[in-house]
């Protein structure tokens, strides 16, 4: 018996010792199928530099992906390395106790000079940092430079300038803004932006229950939005080809995350024709602000014990890693000692440095996850029939759901 146990122990020991020699591969689970090849190219770059390959493992559908991660955690088999979302759903993920804090790594990152404290803030829960950025994207307006030049327009610095540009574009027979309900998640884009530009003081309150979805601030937003639709500012919300639409000129300005710049160029827009500005505020002397989307890359408690996983993670945040990712997609991860992935990101960096804009979390991440899908569906409903009658109904439904949620907490 003793001997057997000893033998077994030795065998296990040998296997454990041998394991790192074979397992030079770390799986990265994600739901961003459209970046499959690009992620893999970073993974291959990791293999060259560190000897650890990052193998990307995509899920085709975000719902299934979330369910997969939830189920894995519930059964105690958390994936070593995977992507998630910031905000309330991030706090929820961390509360499972399965996610490793990465404060030490962040100390290294900040000391190296590449990263700022501000990007770390997105991933802090109860004083500890639990992720590194897969992506940091500021939400900006991409615009059609040749059309702007043709009509003699300037990048707007104020809300009034933005509106007068839009009028000029309508007068020229074009459509100023591109916005669709495609894939069901896009409805919040204009809602959050109008909210931030018109009522920055109420922006965060929406997501802790202190501001009602049928209150006067939200009503003002819907009135402005409905008015813009009435003036013909928006493209057909029913289109299923947003990027192609931009290429075809269906909208002169495209309010979206920076990451779209790479995709639009891929779809056929010459990079030089693409301009960018941060949406101006609608009220005077409000401080400069920008909406930020942070996509976290987390490791499990077990994963953090595996030196290969940590090697892979270190590579990801390193300058080489950021450059490889930036080259492949034009995505920015907040590493300022790496090269800016493209001109758009460089310009946004410069703008933000100049105005010292405050970062606001994207509505999508900030809203309680239980409300996310149902509320955004209501906003989509408004976009499909942008009248105040629908808006009233939409606001009432949103507030009913919101109130019920907070009453439960």
């Amino acid at each position: 018996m003793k001997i057997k146990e000893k033998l077994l122990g030795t065998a296990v020991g040998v296997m454990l010792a041998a394991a790192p020699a074979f397992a030079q591969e770390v799986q990265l689970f994600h739901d961003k199928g459209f970046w499959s090849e690009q992620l893999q190219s970073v993974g291959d770059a990791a293999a060259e530099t560190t000897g650890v390959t990052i193998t990307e493992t995509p899920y085709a559908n975000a719902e299934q992906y979330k369910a997969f991660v939830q189920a894995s955690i519930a059964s105690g088999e958390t994936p070593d390395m995977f992507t998630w979302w910031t905000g309330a759903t991030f706090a929820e993920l961390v509360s499972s106790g399965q996610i490793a804090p990465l404060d030490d790594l962040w100390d290294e990152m900040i000391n190296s000079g590449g990263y700022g404290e501000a990007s770390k803030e997105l991933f802090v829960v109860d004083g500890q940092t639990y992720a590194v950025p897969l992506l940091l994207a500021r939400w900006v307006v991409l615009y059609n430079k040749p059309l702007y030049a043709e009509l003699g327009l300037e990048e707007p610095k104020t809300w009034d300038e933005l509106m007068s540009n839009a009028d000029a574009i309508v007068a020229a027979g074009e459509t100023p803004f591109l916005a669709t309900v495609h894939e069901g998640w896009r409805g919040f884009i204009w809602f959050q932006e109008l909210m931030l530009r018109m009522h920055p003081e109420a922006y965060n309150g929406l997501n802790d229950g202190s501001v009602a979805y049928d209150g006067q601030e939200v009503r003002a937003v819907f009135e402005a939005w409905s008015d813009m639709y009435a003036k013909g500012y928006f493209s057909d919300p029913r289109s299923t080809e947003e990027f192609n639409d931009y290429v075809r000129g269906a909208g002169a300005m495209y309010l979206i995350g920076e990451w779209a710049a790479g995709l639009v160029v891929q779809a056929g827009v010459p990079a030089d024709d693409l301009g960018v500005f941060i949406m101006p505020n609608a009220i005077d002397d409000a401080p400069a602000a920008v909406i930020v989307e942070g996509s976290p890359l987390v490791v499990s408690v077990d994963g953090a014990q595996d030196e290969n996983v940590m090697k892979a993670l270190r590579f990801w945040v390193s300058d080489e890693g950021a450059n490889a990712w930036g080259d492949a997609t034009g995505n920015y991860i907040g590493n300022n000692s790496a090269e800016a992935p493209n001109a758009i990101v460089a310009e946004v960096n410069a703008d933000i440095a100049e105005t010292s804009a405050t970062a606001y979390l994207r509505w999508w991440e900030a809203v309680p996850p239980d409300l996310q899908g149902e509320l955004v569906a209501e906003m989509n409903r408004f976009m499909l029939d942008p009248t105040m009658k629908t808006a009233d109904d939409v606001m009432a439904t949103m507030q009913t759901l919101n109130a019920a949620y907070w009453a439960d907490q």
Partner: protein
Amino acid sequence: MDRAAKDKALLDRIGIDQIARNARARRRGQLGLALVFMSPALILVVGVLLVPVLFNIWLSFTKWKKFTGFGEYAGFANYERMPGNPFFNEALINTAIWVGASVVFPIALGLGMAMFFRNLRGAETFKNIIFIPRILAPTAVGVLWFYVYAPDGLLNRGLGLVSGRDVDIGWLYSDATVTPAIIATFVWQTAGLVMVLLLLGLAAIPKDPIEAAHIDGANRWQIFRYITLPLLMPTLLMVTILSVLAGFTVFDLLWVMGANYPGQRSLALAVFMYFEAFQKGSWAFGSAVAVIIGLVVLCVTWVQTVLQGRVDRMTR
């Protein structure tokens, strides 16, 4: 000795109990063998299908949500939450519409086509054409019709040609049209099967009573109403039940064609259940909705059994 005496002697010698014992032993032997034959099917069905169903029922009485493991007992809490959920109520109404529509349209159209094509020249070709949509996967059919109904799609352009002005209806985007539009696709896909099944039923009806009625001067409507229809009843019933179950549990079409409709979660109970479980992580609540769907299906099956018995007695 005659036969009866011989048998009696045999019985006396072995004893009736022994014979019964032997028979039982043989059956036991055969049962062991039968279990060997049945075990793959039994293990698969019980392990992969029936145990999960029980598990699902148990889950529906717990509080399980999100990242937490299996939750504690919650009684009927998940069921009590349903009536207060506006999306559940809408889904319920839409599901009822689906059930009604899947009884009326495929059957009416299928029966009409069966009667129409029955004695037509080249009926085979027509039958094949009408049947083809049925071979395609609902997912592929959904993708095809998604573009038929698109704002600049086939249907709007066709209506534009007919009416002479621009038609710009978002069939799959507005509350009023989305369910009827998807039902139309469903009918397009399933009416062919209904027709073929009814044609098989029609072919099995004996010719004699119809000829006799003809000679007696019955007109075609009377023959249909009083002879064909009653004889077709068993087939019709079977087809109706198949259609109701298909309409009640329709998912793929709604998933694909309703993808951009803001109220997708309330298009039917099956979709609502998927959203609650897989989008919101309300696993226990989702299980409860699944149990409700299961109960309705069981009721439909039970009604079928009862009606089937009644029809069988009537036609005998």
